[in-house]
């Protein structure tokens, strides 16, 4: 009998737990430890942030589902890792602290045979002075509560615009090393469309602010893609969309400070600039959760498990950009020191960024961090679950399932506006996610045909269809496993 503990019930943790439960007999225990009692379909937060969906449309409570499916659930947060146990506990464990109910604040040693760390990122607002959702007129759409607050503020601003107030809206990245430009891109297009629907578009100046070197970099070094019968660069595509929507842009911007209605940023040229706004949505930098790890004697072994995020089978040797290779990226998401610990989704430490790193004249790193979107998060979680199942069934440590982001495709269906007949979406697929410049030297490391983009109403329908399909899948309704990650 084996006990598998999954930390986190986001896309990665929930996918891993549900596949483990489906494929393993009931003699094996699957335990989920996660502080948020709800599962949320994060990509649809964009629509909560424009008031087109309510939080209840994108979430459901985990406890009843897990009870029904025989998954043990602890509404708690992991505090520290003890992969060798300690003087009293011979089994490896994580220390978890309950976050709700009568048990709130109590701590428990949750022992395991296998551990999946799927705790995603910490939304590191503190890394940018003054950046905090709901403060200084800045907002976030990273969680459903943030997105709901963003909509309340935006709705208020729309009312002011209707009363004749001219406004400035700023959307993009809130730190020199933020990632998730795709989410901000979706939000800016959705906000722009909402203003048109409310007939106040002419009352707002909308500006994109980003740490990208080029538009359409998306933390993936941009891409060359098929677009209809043409071949287009992602920066040309995004520029075309922004021009069409009357959106202005500021690039190479490392936001360092936010004051009430004023953002301070540094450019790659080393200049320090300011931008005023009435409403901003800025994606914070993502970091690890700051977990500590201890050995059997209580010695600090945090650096065996973490370098910010969790250490896995990547090549972390520091080397110049020219020497980066697709082989640096992990394949199994297994920790090299402890073979029974894995970290899929955003929880693993990437070997380096995907975009070319750049420093300002003052030495500030202004480079998008590598994104790990929903699809690779789900795929890596499923392959980790399959490898653990293989290890349990064959009583060995062989890992047969591999999935490097350098040999994996991703689809990004970016909403560009909500509406059954008036909506729009920018659909982009990329293969591979991390460019392989040796395999595809003439097409910027990507396979054309499998890397393509298209704009239009069908993209909105597809995004909406995915919303319903993935919530169906997450609820583990009949034949849920037939829906791919």
């Amino acid at each position, binding site marked *: 009998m084996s006990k598998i503990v999954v930390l986190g019930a986001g896309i990665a943790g929930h996918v891993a737990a549900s596949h483990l439960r489906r494929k393993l007999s009931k003699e094996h225990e699957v335990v989920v430890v996660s502080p948020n009692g709800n599962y949320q379909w994060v990509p649809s937060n964009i629509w909560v942030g424009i008031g087109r969906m309510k939080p209840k449309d994108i979430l459901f409570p985990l406890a009843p589902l897990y009870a029904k499916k025989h998954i043990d659930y602890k509404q708690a947060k992991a505090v520290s890792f003890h992969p060798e146990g300690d003087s009293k506990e011979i089994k490896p464990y994580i220390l978890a602290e309950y976050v709700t109910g009568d048990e709130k604040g109590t701590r428990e040693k949750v022992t395991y045979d296998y551990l999946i760390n799927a705790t995603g990122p910490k939304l590191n607002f503190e890394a940018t002075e003054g950046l905090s959702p709901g403060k200084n007129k800045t907002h976030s759409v990273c969680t459903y509560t943030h997105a709901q607050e963003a909509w309340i503020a935006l709705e208020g601003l729309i009312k002011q615009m209707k009363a004749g107030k001219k406004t400035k809206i700023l959307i993009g990245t809130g730190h020199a090393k933020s990632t998730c430009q795709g989410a901000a891109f979706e939000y800016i297009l959705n906000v722009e469309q909402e203003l048109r629907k409310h007939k106040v578009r002419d009352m707002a100046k909308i500006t994109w602010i980003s740490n990208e070197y080029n538009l359409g970099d998306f933390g993936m070094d941009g891409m060359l893609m098929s677009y209809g019968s043409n071949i*287009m660069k992602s920066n*040309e595509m995004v*520029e*075309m*969309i922004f*021009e*069409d929507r009357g959106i202005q842009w500021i690039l190479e911007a490392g936001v360092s400070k936010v004051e009430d209605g004023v953002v301070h940023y540094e450019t790659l040229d080393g200049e320090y600039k300011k931008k005023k706004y009435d409403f901003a949505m800025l994606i914070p930098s993502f970091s690890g959760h700051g977990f500590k790890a201890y050995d059997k004697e209580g010695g600090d072994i945090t650096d065996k498990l973490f370098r910010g995020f969790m250490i896995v089978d990547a090549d972390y040797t520091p080397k110049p950009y020219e020497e980066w290779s*697709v*082989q640096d*990226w992990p*394949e199994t998401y297994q920790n090299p020191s402890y073979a029974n610990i894995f970290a899929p989704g955003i929880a693993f430490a990437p070997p380096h960024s995907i975009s070319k790193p750049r420093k300002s004249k003052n030495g500030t790193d202004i480079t998008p961090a590598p994104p790990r979107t929903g*699809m690779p998060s789900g*795929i890596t979680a499923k*392959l980790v679950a399959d490898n653990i199942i293989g290890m349990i069934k064959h009583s060995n440590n062989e890992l047969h399932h*591999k*999935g*490097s982001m*350098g*040999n*994996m*495709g*991703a*689809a990004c*269906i970016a909403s560009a506006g909500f509406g059954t*007949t*008036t909506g*729009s979406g920018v*659909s982009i*697929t990329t*293969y591979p996610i991390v460019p*392989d410049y040796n395999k595809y030297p003439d097409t910027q490391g990507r396979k054309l045909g*499998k890397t*393509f983009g*298209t*704009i*239009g*109403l*069908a*993209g909105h*329908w*597809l995004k909406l*269809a995915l919303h319903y399909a993935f919530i169906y899948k997450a609820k583990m309704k009949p034949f849920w496993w037939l829906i*791919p*990650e």
Partner: protein
Amino acid sequence: MTRRISKYKRFTMMNPIIQFFKFIYLSIKVLIVVAGGHGGTRNV
């Protein structure tokens, strides 16, 4: 120079009939990219 979205292109982007077929095409294309499999990069 920035490319522009032409009037004709905009019409095709928003026409529900054309977009219905595009939706089917897109769904299949996305499925091919996603279900197209994945693997390692080190021993290939």
